[in-house]
């Protein structure tokens, strides 16, 4: 039975086969590809900074950051100011935060039989877009960070404004998602106690409990994350065992015959990426307690995404304290990019998980470009013998509606997948 899954930044087809009234296998098909990697070939390296945000209208900023870091990795020693690094991390955080709000209020609520809450999605995400625009000029589709730093020169007045955007977003979170002050929320470490709060997140989590859905959506319990910054770590977690010896070298892409998307593995295994993976690696107390009780189920996955929103808001405030405006925003690279021969790799944590870019340059011209997107990790299609992460999470369910719910808790992005 084929089901068209809509409103996942495009569509995908899930082809279910049933045995004894249970889903026995499912293939995931994406019906198109734009082949951005090909578009990039032969282009001037810096033009990738303009082209790549256009991989995706919802997480294009992560693609920008991944691009600039891949290009900078082609240099032997390039100096970037701390200030530029912090600004890049901030704007990336803001994109993650706004994606999470949109996912919760636009994608998730309807799956639980509630009406979409458009204003609750757009109000905080517009604030975060404004925060990006302070540095980037606009959102979506800025190219404000370039090889050597960032183009903007924020002033103290911009920072005052920025603090207001962040504070207002925190207030929104506290008034809606989990009704408590963020400090007590961030200190929560017992899921049962946490459920005594009120708020939109709690409503959904309670509903999962009451409707007997706690065991839904479990997969391999195997997580990975490649992006590194002052908040995220590069590591994997097998169940709760965290190990930081992961190298992009072992990441492999392969074709899926039925689909335009490509599978991706680490040392031949499928891994879950995204907020739950990051929380497991960061040992976020509340998510860990949920995981201890309910495993890598939809419950933990939803909780992790929303918790991350609050954590990133708090972390952004801390980052801002470290920002020294007297440092240079941009340091002219010692070698012009048109003289650069070499290759570069980058990994950043986008809203949905690890995003990897690889570039090869010859005299500053792009010879080859490879993009591996987060959704590819979670939606890699395997065979019956070796199922992908989301495939495994859907097997054994008795109806396609529940399967769609499980599928969408991975926050699927079709346009990214079909770059």
């Amino acid at each position, binding site marked *: 039975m084929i089901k*068209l899954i*809509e*409103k996942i*930044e*495009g*569509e995908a087809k899930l082809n279910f086969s049933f045995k004894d009234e249970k889903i026995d296998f499912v293939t995931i098909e994406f*019906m*198109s590809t*734009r*082949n951005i990697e*090909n*578009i990039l070939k032969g282009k*001037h390296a*810096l*033009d990738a*900074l*303009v*082209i790549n*945000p*256009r991989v*995706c*209208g919802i997480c*294009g900023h992560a693609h920008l950051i991944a691009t600039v870091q891949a290009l900078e990795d082609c240099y032997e020693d390039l100096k970037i100011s701390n200030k*530029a690094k912090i600004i890049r991390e901030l704007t990336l955080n803001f994109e993650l935060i706004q994606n999470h709000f*949109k996912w919760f209020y*636009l994608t998730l609520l*309807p799956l639980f039989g509630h*009406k*979409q809450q*458009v*204003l609750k*999605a*757009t109000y905080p*995400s*517009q604030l975060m*877009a*404004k925060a990006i*625009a*302070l540095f*980037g*000029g*606009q*959102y*979506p*589709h800025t*190219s*404000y960070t*370039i090889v*050597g*730093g960032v*183009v*903007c*020169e924020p*002033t103290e007045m911009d920072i005052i*404004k920025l603090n207001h955007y962040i504070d207002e977003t925190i207030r929104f979170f506290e008034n809606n998602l989990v009704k408590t002050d963020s400090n007590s929320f961030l200190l929560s470490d017992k899921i049962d106690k946490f459920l005594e709060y009120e708020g939109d997140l709690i409503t959904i989590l309670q509903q999962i409990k009451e409707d007997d859905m706690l065991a839904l959506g479990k997969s391999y319990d195997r997580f990975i994350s490649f992006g590194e910054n002052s908040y995220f770590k590069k590591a994997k977690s097998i169940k709760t065992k965290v190990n930081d010896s992961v190298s992009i070298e072992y990441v492999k892409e392969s074709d899926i015959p039925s689909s335009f998307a490509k599978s991706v593995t680490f040392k031949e295994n499928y891994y879950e990426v995204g907020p739950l993976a990051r929380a497991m690696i960061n040992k976020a107390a509340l998510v860990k307690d949920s995981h201890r009780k309910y495993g890598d189920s939809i419950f933990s996955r939803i909780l992790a995404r929303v918790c991350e929103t609050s954590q990133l808001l708090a972390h952004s405030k801390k980052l801002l304290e470290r920002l020294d405006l007297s440092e*240079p*925003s*941009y340091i*002219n690279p010692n070698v012009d990019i048109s003289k650069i021969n070499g290759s570069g790799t980058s990994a950043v944590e986008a809203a949905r998980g690890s995003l990897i870019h690889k570039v090869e340059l010859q005299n500053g011209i792009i010879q080859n470009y490879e993009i591996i997107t987060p959704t590819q990790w979670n939606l890699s299609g395997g065979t019956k013998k070796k199922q992908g992460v989301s495939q495994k999470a859907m097997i054994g369910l008795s109806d396609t509606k529940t399967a769609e719910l499980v599928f969408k808790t991975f926050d699927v992005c079709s*346009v990214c997948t079909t770059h």
Partner: protein
Amino acid sequence: MIKLLWLSGITCNANTHSFLNYPFIEQFLNDFEFIYHPVLDSSYTLQEIVSNEIECDVLLIEGSISPEFQRADVSIEDIIRKYAPKVQKIVTVGTCATFGGIFSQSDYKDVTGLHFDKEQKNQKFENLFDKTISISGCPIHPEILVNTLYAIKGDIALRLDNFLRPKEFYAYTVHNGCVRNEYFEYKVDAHQFGELEGCMFYDHGCQAPFTHASCNKILWNEVNSKTRVGLPCFGCTEPTFPKANLFTTKKNMGVPENLPLGVGKRVYLTLAGITKAFKIPRLEKKLLDD
């Protein structure tokens, strides 16, 4: 209530998300009904849209068009052919839908905008030309799209340029309203990235003086614009987007190849000669220094 159908071609969805940045979205959703939208809850599913004929007043097309491209297993051209004759107006949302944009370089066959293949007019949907309004931009500015839809709703006659773009928004150049104007006017050509000072026209590829758009008049996200922060305008509202070497100004014998709209080379050189003869200390120093 005006019924809208938001149809996506080959796209990155940024117009969809840019639209969600419209500050008074609730008001908008009270005044318009989406029979289908790629993100917002709508009256019908995509599957229902492509397999039935649902009543609709305005067709919004996002993304470029190729005869090969399908949505829910139906060719995008067939979906357009089904809905276009019935609607009152068609709006091409973004540069891809208007001119082909970046995805005209994708692997699909014959990728174009609805009526234009870059500057060239297409014959294919010529019968729809008179009912189309182009809102170009990569992505669209939410206010420009929304206000155009209100103009359609209120039966306000919009004056359009040759590419069917409303002049109220596209008669301006992006250069109008940039905070770096003085550096442009007096030809202070020492721009460095990461600074408040300087104009990107002379070295860093700013296309604002010859790009039709209101980015410095109707600010992005209500706060800013590319050129204000120090990023060149890449000309994303124009049929030529994206050009190559976007961070450098192409020059012939020291003169920028593309001059401000309507300014001939002789005028430009004469003015440049005069301004070069003066030194304006205020523009030579850092803006915030003593």
